[in-house]
């Protein structure tokens, strides 16, 4: 039922997407009716794909194992929360998620631009609908990835979800990454529309800026959650490994960051048009590449995704996107030239350009390192790969420079800044940076890593400069309208959301990178072998193996330890455990099988503002295994009815003989035997407590690692502020025409300059010059 309904909905979605693309193309050159039709078709696409997603989720919730996707990724025992999230743990489910999120983004984009950008929208619609059709087509025709593929006969239970993935952040992480990848489709599609129609002013950027920012934020959140999962779940204590799949998500994020900055230059100054077009094409291609990498298995990765049928198709799409966009950009080069030049090196736009170059260089480096196995195979015939130290060597200096520029950029005004103004805004941050650098070098071990020391000093510069921006902005506001300082701060942020939201993102990034630098340069990492009662000292903390622990539940047997920690005269316990998951659906196996499934680490973590104490245990189960194997042998002897077996054994073997003759008794017999085995396994597991066995512990003291998560959250809240529509904008009539939009932009530019002047960023002379220039430009717009 679900299978056939879903298949019909998916097929209809495919036809609707194609129809939307065709209708949009018919609607070009101002045939408005077709444009309306195509927009409604995209809404319809959203409705159909929503139906598909709901059907799949209902099937998961209701344990409908007649669907292959449910049987393979869920089971009756799977907790409800993970049942709902299990959809995207499958290949077909994540393709459906891609298409669905795209239909949401496309619907929102078309709703927001209805009646506007009449020339560009038809082409943008066609591009988005065609990409949606591509992904739906993959599900329908590529083979083996149809989410509504059925199973017959219907199995009684499913395989279950990999326990490693049963972690809250792992469940949110894939949809966040996907939303990020997918939302970049919107600015890409509008850029293509602008290129085709030669409408290359900033209007396409203004309409899709929010989507780019939302995509950027989702992708960033996805990366952050992935890092967090790795830190708390994978049992190695790290959060980043330069793994190809991680890199695949980082690259579009970095280029997207560059794009978000350089589009401001185009909006304000009409420059960098070619660059922006190239950046959005690169971002979207890298997003597709990210989707491709997790699907193809062309690179060695800790994420083994298995060879899949869809990889080559996605590669084909990337090729089409790259070749088509490049040809389009080259053919429009004459229209993309800007008559204006950057006025001065000491201006915000030139810093944006430098930051763009750094981000692109960083991406190029990561790209080279990620694909090096393929490159080296091409040149030398040998697959060679690059490890984390190589990545660190190049990315560290670039990241340090980036931190410096997150501080410099916000301090500069647009167009130019005089030496006098520069001195005023740079003085305090520079002094603080030097003081922090010198203080850390003198009083701590920070000088052991010069890179880290440089990063701390630059971060101090950036954070001071940004705080100064907030302070001066609030002070300027207060001198205008009075009130308290906090109220003025809130007011000035609320009235200039893009600007201050961006500054908050910068603060978050600086904080995050401080956490990365400290935790990677000054980490203490020890592997301890302790018997119960023994202690060791790790970086000034006494770690005592107090006692072993055992926990048993339906899914897993956990062997763990209580660690007593003494830190600065304080005492606390940490619990860490290794959980051995039972393989599901192997009823009636051996007792050993209880210890043969996946094993995961439950990390014992004491997080703190100064440092984290991280611990994981690797229990020594040699003795336990011996007993389990002996028990297995005993069980086999027992059911074979060997002489001298106890009466329970005879009962079991009677049961098994009866089941062998009468198949209808099998499930009941199996259940009984399984229950018996589970009880035995539990008893055996508990005997681990008496082993007094030594266990291996990994204990890590990770300084400032908490600030990675805090910095990430600060950056995300900044993005949220920047995206949030201003109250004044919703009251004002929406800029319907291109002219109104231009006026609006110029007006905002004048206001920005006034704020910069009031906040003391621009000296009186600088401001007088700039203001005159801006007003002249505004008059020109009004005359036109």
């Amino acid at each position, binding site marked *: 039922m679900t299978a056939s309904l879903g298949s019909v909905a998916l097929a209809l979605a495919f036809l609707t997407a194609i129809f939307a693309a065709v209708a949009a193309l018919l609607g070009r050159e101002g045939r408005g009716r077709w444009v309306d039709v195509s927009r409604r078709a995209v809404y319809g696409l959203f409705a159909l794909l929503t139906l598909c997603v709901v059907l799949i989720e209902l099937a998961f919730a209701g344990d409908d194992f007649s669907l292959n996707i449910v049987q393979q*990724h869920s089971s009756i025992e799977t907790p409800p929360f993970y049942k709902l999230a299990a959809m995207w*743990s*499958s*290949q077909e489910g994540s393709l459906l998620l891609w298409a669905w999120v795209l239909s949401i983004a496309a619907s929102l984009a078309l709703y927001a631009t209805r009646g506007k950008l009449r020339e560009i929208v038809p082409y943008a619609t066609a591009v988005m609908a065609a990409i949606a059709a591509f992904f739906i087509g993959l599900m329908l025709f590529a083979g083996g990835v149809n989410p509504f593929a059925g199973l017959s006969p219907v199995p009684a239970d499913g*395989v279950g*979800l*990999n326990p*490693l993935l049963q972690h809250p952040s792992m469940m949110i992480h894939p949809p966040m990454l996907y939303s990020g990848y997918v939302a970049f489709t919107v600015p890409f599609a509008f850029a293509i529309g602008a290129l085709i129609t030669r409408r290359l002013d900033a209007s396409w950027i203004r309409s899709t800026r929010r989507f780019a920012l939302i995509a950027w934020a989702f992708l960033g959140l996805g990366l952050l959650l992935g890092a967090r999962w790795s830190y708390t*779940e*994978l*049992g*190695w*204590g790290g959060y980043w*490994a330069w793994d190809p799949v991680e890199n695949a998500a980082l690259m579009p994020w970095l280029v997207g960051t560059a794009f978000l900055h350089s589009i401001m230059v185009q909006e304000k100054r009409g420059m960098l048009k070619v660059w922006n077009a190239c950046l959005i094409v690169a971002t979207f291609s890298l997003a597709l590449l990210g989707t491709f990498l*997790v*699907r193809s298995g062309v690179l*060695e*990765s*800790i*994420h*083994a*995704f*298995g060879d899949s049928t869809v990889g080559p198709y996605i590669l084909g799409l990337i090729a089409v996107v790259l070749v088509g966009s490049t040809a389009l950009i080259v053919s429009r080069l004459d229209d993309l030239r800007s008559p204006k*030049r950057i006025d001065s090196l000491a201006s915000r736009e030139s810093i944006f350009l430098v930051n763009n170059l750094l981000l692109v260089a960083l991406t*190029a*480096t990561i790209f*080279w*390192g990620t694909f*090096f*196995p393929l490159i*080296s195979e091409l040149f030398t015939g*040998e*697959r*060679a*790969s*690059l*490890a984390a*130290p*190589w990545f660190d*060597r*190049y990315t560290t200096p670039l990241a340090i420079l980036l931190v410096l520029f997150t501080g410099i950029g916000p301090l500069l005004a647009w167009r130019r800044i005089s030496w006098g103004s520069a001195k005023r805004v740079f003085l305090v941050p520079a002094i603080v940076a030097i003081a922090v650098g010198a203080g850390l070098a003198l009083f701590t071990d920070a000088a052991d890593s010069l890179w880290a020391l440089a990063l701390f000093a630059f971060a101090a510069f950036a954070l001071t400069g940004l705080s100064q921006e907030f302070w001066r902005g609030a002070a300027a506001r207060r001198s205008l309208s009075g009130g308290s300082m906090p109220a003025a701060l809130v007011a000035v942020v609320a009235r200039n959301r893009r600007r201050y939201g961006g500054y908050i993102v910068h603060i978050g990034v600086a904080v995050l990178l401080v956490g990365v630098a400290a935790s990677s340069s000054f980490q203490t990492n020890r*592997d301890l*072998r302790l018997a119960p009662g023994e202690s060791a000292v790790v970086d000034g903390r006494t770690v005592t193996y107090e006692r072993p622990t055992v926990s048993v539940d339906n899914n897993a047997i956990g062997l763990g330890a209580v660690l007593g920690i003494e830190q600065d005269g304080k005492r606390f316990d940490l619990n860490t455990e290794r959980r051995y998951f039972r*393989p599901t659906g*192997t009823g009636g*196996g051996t007792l*050993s*099988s209880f*210890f*043969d499934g*996946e*094993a*995961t*680490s439950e990390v014992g973590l004491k997080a703190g503002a100064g440092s984290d104490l991280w611990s994981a245990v*690797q229990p*020594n189960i*040699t003795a336990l*295994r011996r007993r389990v194997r002996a028990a297995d042998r005993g069980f086999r002897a027992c059911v074979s009815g060997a002489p001298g077996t106890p009466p329970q054994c005879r009962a079991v073997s009677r049961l098994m003989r009866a089941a062998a003759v009468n198949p209808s008794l099998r499930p009941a017999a199996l259940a009984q035997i399984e229950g018996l085995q589970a009880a035995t396994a539990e008893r055996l597991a508990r005997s681990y407590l008496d082993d007094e066995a030594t266990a*291996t512990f*990994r204990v890590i003291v990770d300084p400032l690692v908490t600030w990675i998560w805090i910095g990430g959250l600060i950056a995300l809240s900044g993005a949220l502020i920047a995206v949030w529509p201003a109250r004044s904008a919703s009251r004002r009539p929406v800029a319907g025409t291109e002219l109104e939009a231009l006026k609006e932009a110029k007006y905002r530019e004048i206001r920005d300059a006034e704020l910069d002047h009031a906040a003391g960023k621009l000296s009186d002379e600088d401001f007088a010059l700039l203001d005159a220039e801006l007003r002249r430009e505004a008059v020109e717009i009004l005359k036109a």
Partner: protein
Amino acid sequence: MDPARKRKIRLVVALSVAVLLAVGLVYTSFSASTEAKEPSQLLSAAPGSSAQLTGRVVVGSVTREGEGMRFRVADRDDAGKSIPVTYSGTVPDPFRGGREIVLTGSVENGVFAGERDTLVTKCPSKFTTESSPTNDG
């Protein structure tokens, strides 16, 4: 100097710097990389040569002794060709027989000695549907 000329010079300088950096990057990547090899390729390798071993852990071959562990790794496509491995250090959660691993180290006396903490085990990720064989680990 007229501005157009100045811009041209600036562009040339910037491009040369970029090219220099790129050459450095390319050069170091070839010298810093380690070759990924499968057991069958390592069996005939010169002793002491370092490499990145990739392959599948042989089911049932994992034994722990003291700090470290021993196991065999076989070619991904040919289970018949395998090499003994010694390793100590962090063992990632997903590690066990039948799993694909990547390990940096060198061949000594026919045994692949893994470097501490370089063991990478591929996640039996959500995207594979293989039902895993049982084994120890």
